[in-house]
């Protein structure tokens, strides 16, 4: 049996017809009681379970997933990881995530293929260049890496972009974050699941939570399609369906669900080796290791739980791509899909108590949940293990909507929504 993945184990298995590989995680039946239940087997839920076991020694933990691991937004995103945010609170959160991602393959003994290929955010006018300089200064002050690039420097990094003199959005320069990049999204889910399982966490798939059991106002367990399961603390990491669970359990959230679409093209020879984003075109793209261009853009404008693409945003995003890199206009799409994202009024996530005792939420990641998986799990595990906020997550408590201390990243970071 090859339990630890290495070049040597690969060689050994290769010599024996690959018959010795064990399943990467067990398929246990749920126990009647756990210390902590994490609802949601996506990246955030699995990372939470992993850090509960690793950082806090809590191993009597279950992850309940209604479908299969990473089958929601973890498997539907455009795999970009970055920390180019404006506010200090956001940098603390997302840069923690980038730092955790940097060592995650080694920690998990699972190659998540984190490729720090850098990210360009284009500026298309002199005023945009001034705002880009402000953004770069803010990021550097907050401790994230950032550089301001001239048009020539952008052209060296991504010559396929539209440098035509008559371009609708001429390129004046860009902000550059060199530590940003992409990772294999399924590998993040699988690697975390395998590592959590090896630390003793029960990962239970095809187990949908149908109700939250409360006694004297406190959540003490959940009813599921595999029976009743009780726990001292319950964590919900069910982005996309956060409000559905909230309505079941009787707390409220400042969240609206929208579809966020993404696209992948037929494989091409290498044309770009970074992530390029144009806020003016409302489009960003990178090239996967298989050669497909992975393309994303803004949110749909109609609230939705329908996990599928549609025409209005497809036209907007692909029109933007043709303006950004006209040589890609005739590339054919291979797939087109949508995930359902939790959108909060300030485009920042919510981590904290739900309002029902014993039940905590990790939600509201909007369009950027994948990049935050290790940090979301790390901070949520701290909250579930200690009952107290980590210093970084405190500002992201739901209470900010009552006190008015919003972290308004929707306007500040140039995200296209």
């Amino acid at each position: 049996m090859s339990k630890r993945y290495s070049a040597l184990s690969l060689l050994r298995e290769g010599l024996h017809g690959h018959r010795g590989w064990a399943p990467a995680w067990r398929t246990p039946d749920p126990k009647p009681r756990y210390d902590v239940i994490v609802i949601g087997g996506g990246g955030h839920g699995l990372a939470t379970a992993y850090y509960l076991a690793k950082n806090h020694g809590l191993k009597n933990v279950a992850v309940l997933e209604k479908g299969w691991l990473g089958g929601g937004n973890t498997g539907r995103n455009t795999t970009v990881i970055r920390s180019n945010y404006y506010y200090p609170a956001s940098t603390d959160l997302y840069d923690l995530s980038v730092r955790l991602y940097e060592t995650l393959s080694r920690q998990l003994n699972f190659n998540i293929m984190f490729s720090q290929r850098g990210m360009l955010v284009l500026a298309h006018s002199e005023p945009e260049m001034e705002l880009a300089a402000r953004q770069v200064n803010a990021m550097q002050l907050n401790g994230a890496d950032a550089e301001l690039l001239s048009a020539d420097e952008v052209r060296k990094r991504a010559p396929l972009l539209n440098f035509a003199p008559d371009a609708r959005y001429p390129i004046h320069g860009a902000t550059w974050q060199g530590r940003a990049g992409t990772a294999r999204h399924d590998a993040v889910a699988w690697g975390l699941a395998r590592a959590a399982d090896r630390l003793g966490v029960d990962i239970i798939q095809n187990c949908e939570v149908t109700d939250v059991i409360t006694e004297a106002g406190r959540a003490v367990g959940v009813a599921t399609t595999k029976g009743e399961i009780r726990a001292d603390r319950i964590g919900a990491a069910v982005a996309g369906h956060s409000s559905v669970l909230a309505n079941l359990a009787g707390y409220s959230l400042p969240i609206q669900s929208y579809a966020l679409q993404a696209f992948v093209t037929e494989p091409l020879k290498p044309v770009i080796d970074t992530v390029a984003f144009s806020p003016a075109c409302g489009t960003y793209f990178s090239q996967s290791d298989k050669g497909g261009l992975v393309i994303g853009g803004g949110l749909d404008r109609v609230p939705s739980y329908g996990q599928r693409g549609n025409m209005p945003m497809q036209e907007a995003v692909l029109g933007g791509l043709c303006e950004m890199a006209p040589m890609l206009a005739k590339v054919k799409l291979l797939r087109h899909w949508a995930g359902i994202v939790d959108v909060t009024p300030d485009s920042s996530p919510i981590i904290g108590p739900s309002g029902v005792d014993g039940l905590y939420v990790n939600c509201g990641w909007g369009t950027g949940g994948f990049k935050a998986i290790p940090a979301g799990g790390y901070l949520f595990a701290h909250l579930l293990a200690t009952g107290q906020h980590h210093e970084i997550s405190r500002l992201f408590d739901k209470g900010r909507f009552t006190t008015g201390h919003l972290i308004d990243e929707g306007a500040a970071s140039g995200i296209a929504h």
Partner: protein
Amino acid sequence: MQLFPCPFCGARDEREFHFMGEAGKTRPDTQQPVSDADWAAYLYDQRNDKGRVREVWMHLPCREVFGMQRDSVTMQVLGTTAFRKAGA
């Protein structure tokens, strides 16, 4: 493109419409003191139901504000309610 029904203009392209919020919220009575929590709940919290929803929409070209009942999974429009009084 999906067509949405404007009570004033009839069936129009979905891109002409703007989602304004959930229907049925009641603004706190400011004749009485209103707590921060109640204001926050009114301003920010959403039911955000999966399935049948009642929402307030605006048709941007004619500025008609109206109620729309939809299914948030199938995206089917189930009906609209004009907020205007007849003849107004």
